[in-house]
């Protein structure tokens, strides 16, 4: 773990300022390492600080012109051949410094697995004069004791004033050509705004986490789905990727030949999610994850949306409004959540997405229930998850037929980012799920438009 950027303020940083453990070699940005490199642990090997794009380019060239990035081997100065390795450009848009630091920590753990030129971009002081502060670092990791080091570049870019509204103009000249560009937007991408769309037009992939979006997250989810039609972006949402253990468990029910015939006859899908809001009213809790569960099932089973999600009292889903607080003195009345109707060509399928007060993080899926009726026989399936496992139970005509647990730990951001990156080009299953989710949300959000067509670019 290394220090993140110091707050740039007016951008008057010093070139070559020491930011990490070790001492800076005179006249260069090389960092002398006092302890031997350990396999798998990223080490800061270079840092410098500049204020213009040409200076950044110059510094990046300097790093790799250094003949020797030394390290200590058994107490003696030695050398593992350090090679710059990049399989992609990774641009992280972080409005808050702590988000940038957290993202940088995640990316450094991926240095050995997906080395990239990483730019962590943040805009500051939008009303002041334009300025640029760039902290350039090189991190190296030994994959094994006997293997050469792999090094990757990390650039913290803080942009002030008018320049902050043109992040694409900062990022574009620093991209390694012919390598795919991934934009990781850990916070809330302003999809409708030109600065976001201009930046996305430079990218091949977009990684977001819809479960962190404000309010119910559904308006932004709809906008995200709109990008599938207006761009060539390959889109990965951590909220969806994270659910793979649920999907494996649900699919496993229908691997059993006696349950498989019930699959086309599903009549009801109910997803229960955690809320911290006493009323649990729609709009108060992010429901992107529960909606993804429904959307995945519906898209895999070829369903269509007949009635989009609406509050269970029949009103249209309030897109973003938080419900009024309960009347003084009265006990809060828990909302019945959202409902929708799907169709599979023959049958109507009712959908319920309902909140439950829980200590689990708000918006976390607690339970997925399926009800299927076939030739007078009824199958009920109930899937729940804990930190390390997923539990599946199935009843046929009221008799328990299956009760099993799967060891399936929750995945951290490093795993999720790695999977999002590895998946490369567009994933039809993910795209179909996202489109279905947008259909479920209904047509109450405008699709964002790109300022200009997105080039195909390279994809990995």
């Amino acid at each position, binding site marked *: 773990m290394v220090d993140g950027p110091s707050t740039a303020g007016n951008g008057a940083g010093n070139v070559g300022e020491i930011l990490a453990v070790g001492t800076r070699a005179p006249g260069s940005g090389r960092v002398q390492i006092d302890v031997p490199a350990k396999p798998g642990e990223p080490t800061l090997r270079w840092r410098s600080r500049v204020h213009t794009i040409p200076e950044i380019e110059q510094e990046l060239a300097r790093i790799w012109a250094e003949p020797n990035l030394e390290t200590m081997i058994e107490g003696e100065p030695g050398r593992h051949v350090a090679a710059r390795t990049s399989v992609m450009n990774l641009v992280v848009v972080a409005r808050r410094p702590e988000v940038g630091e957290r993202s940088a920590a995640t990316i450094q753990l991926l240095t*050995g697995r997906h080395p990239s030129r990483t730019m962590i971009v943040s805009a500051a002081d939008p009303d002041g004069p334009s300025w640029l502060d760039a902290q350039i670092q090189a991190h190296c990791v030994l994959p094994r004791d006997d293997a050469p080091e792999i090094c990757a570049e990390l650039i913290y870019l803080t942009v002030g004033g008018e320049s902050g509204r043109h992040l694409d103009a900062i990022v574009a000249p620093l991209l390694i050509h012919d390598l795919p560009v991934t934009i990781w937007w850990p916070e809330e991408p302003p999809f409708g705004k030109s600065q976001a769309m201009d930046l996305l037009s430079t990218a091949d992939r977009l990684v977001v986490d819809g479960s962190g979006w404000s309010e119910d997250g559904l308006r932004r989810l709809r906008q995200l789905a709109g990008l599938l039609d207006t761009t060539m972006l390959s889109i990965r949402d951590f909220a969806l990727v994270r659910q793979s253990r649920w999907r*494996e468990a649900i699919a496993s029910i*229908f691997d059993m030949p006696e349950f498989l015939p019930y699959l086309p006859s599903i009549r009801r899908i109910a997803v229960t999610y955690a809320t911290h809001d006493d009323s649990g009213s729609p709009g108060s809790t992010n429901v992107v994850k529960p909606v993804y569960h429904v959307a995945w099932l519906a898209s895999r089973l070829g369903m269509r949306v007949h009635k989009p999600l609406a509050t269970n009292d029949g009103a249209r889903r309030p897109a973003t409004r938080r419900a009024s607080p309960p009347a003084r003195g009265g006990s809060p009345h828990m909302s019945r959540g959202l409902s929708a109707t799907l169709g599979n060509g023959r049958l109507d399928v009712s959908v319920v997405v309902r909140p439950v007060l829980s200590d689990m993080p708000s918006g976390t899926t607690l339970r997925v229930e399926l009800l299927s009726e076939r030739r007078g026989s009824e199958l009920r399936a109930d899937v729940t998850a804990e930190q390390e496992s997923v539990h599946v139970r199935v009843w046929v005509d009221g008799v328990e037929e299956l009760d099993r647990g799967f*060891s399936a730990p929750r995945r951290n951001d490093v795993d999720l980012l790695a999977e999002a990156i590895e998946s490369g080009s567009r994933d039809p299953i993910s795209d179909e799920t996202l489109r279905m989710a947008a259909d479920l949300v209904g047509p109450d959000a405008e699709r964002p438009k790109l300022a200009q067509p997105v080039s195909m670019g390279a994809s990995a």
Partner: protein
Amino acid sequence: MTAPTRPRTRPDAQPDAVPQPAPRPKDAPRTMKDVRLAREGRKKQAGRTLENPLREGLRLERVPDPCVLVLFGATGDLAHRKVVPALYQLWRTNLLPHEFVLLGIGRRPFDDASFRTELRGAAEKYSRVLPLDESAWRTFSERIDYQRLDFDDAKGYDALAGRLDDLDHERGTRGNRLYYLATQPSAFSEIVAQLGRVGLDHEVHGGGWRRVVIEKPFGHDLESAHRLNKEVGRVFRESQVYRIDHYLGKETVRNLLVFRFANGIFEPIWNRRHIDHVQITVAESIGVENRGAFYEETGASRDFLQNHLLQLMSLVAMEPPATFAADPLRDEKLKVLRAIAEKSRSDIAQDVVRGQYGSGWVAAESVRGYREEAAVDAGSETETFIAAKLMIDDWRWSGIPFYLRTGKRLPKRATEIAIQFKEVPHKLFRESATDPDPNLLAIRIQPDEGIMLRFGAKIPGLGIDVRSVTMDFTYGSAFAVDSPDAYETLILDALLGDASLFTRADEVEQAWGIVDPIIDAWADSPPPDFPNYESGTWGPDAADQLLARDGRRWRRI
């Protein structure tokens, strides 16, 4: 020894290996209306198994069916070192079905509990992910049972049949059984015959599949392999038989197919016009260890040439299969083996080199010679090294030598395929101080799995000096994730019914048809002065001369 016969055209070598077009099901939809109704779900499409649409896009698009893996030789070394750790790893990563039972079969008097304890010790020692995941091991061990059985005890198989029926009933394994023969090869025929006698080979209509996994060596010559194939074929259909060559399960070997056929730029130059020769090396630094008696009967030619080396060669040389399915893939490999030029006695004397290690130094340790090893004849004539030059008589490879070598007590453990390209047709940079080496593509199977491409580059400076540089891809650096062990890959494939990475009867026999004449020729002539190479060297001088005669040399590894 009888004169060898190459099984070039024998039709009975592959009982049902050549796929025939499947007959059209009687009630298959015939008209557009039938097809449309079937697609709309209004009428079940005949002859088509329902598939789980929720599996699409998940880690496994199919999961193994509930089943019992019946492990013969469950108390042996192979089971402990490879099979059980691989099964545990598959279980730990949720790749085995919930209704799974490992039924160990052996002669030793274990009960279920003591056998589980025994296997836990093996998993703690040999699992590639340690320490053991207690929770995963607990649930896995609940699925381990043991049945004592002498392999030639007919009554024991009756009891086994009963036990398997009970397991199907109690554990929901649905009659699906994978018989894994991790025993001495001498027991294969007996076990297979007994399984057939009690009907354990029968795939019951709607009641489960039966497959048998057979470990190498599959026979010790063409005749014995053919006999064993026939004996196995009397009980199991070829499609039920999975012959393991664990090299085919290695990640880099599988990547060889991806490298060749998922990239457009290599296949156009993968032929005699651009390639000068191919070297395949399978080097071991270890000696025979405690397998002296086994090795005395096999030697390097049977232990490695007949299987690993020829399999690697056929993967390098084969034409692209039409689909990545078991039979099209194996058909193409078989064509390569069939096209390998038959060698006369004089060809063998000239193109094949045998060696036996003497004492020496390996990895800074003094080691004894082969003849001093335990259970090895003091005057042994068994080869521990073989190098051979093989030619493939087909349009793609005509005139291009494939140099193969394998041996024990070589300086290091390394398996590599080196594709040596031809020199440039015209030397443009005559003023360069050194001639650049021709391009070389090295595919490292182990260790440091990866691919290296060598090419010439200009040395920075005012003149035009050219030097060879390399582009190196290593799995460890590019992916930094552990590859599955070959046994994990192969066992999962067998459970899924995918035979792509298993060798077919006709392949095995064809490979013996290449090795048998060499062994016969050696049997008729005294060996060179064994031992003829020091431990810790790259084999006898004759191996170097084999290439030197052609103006080439072995690649330094």
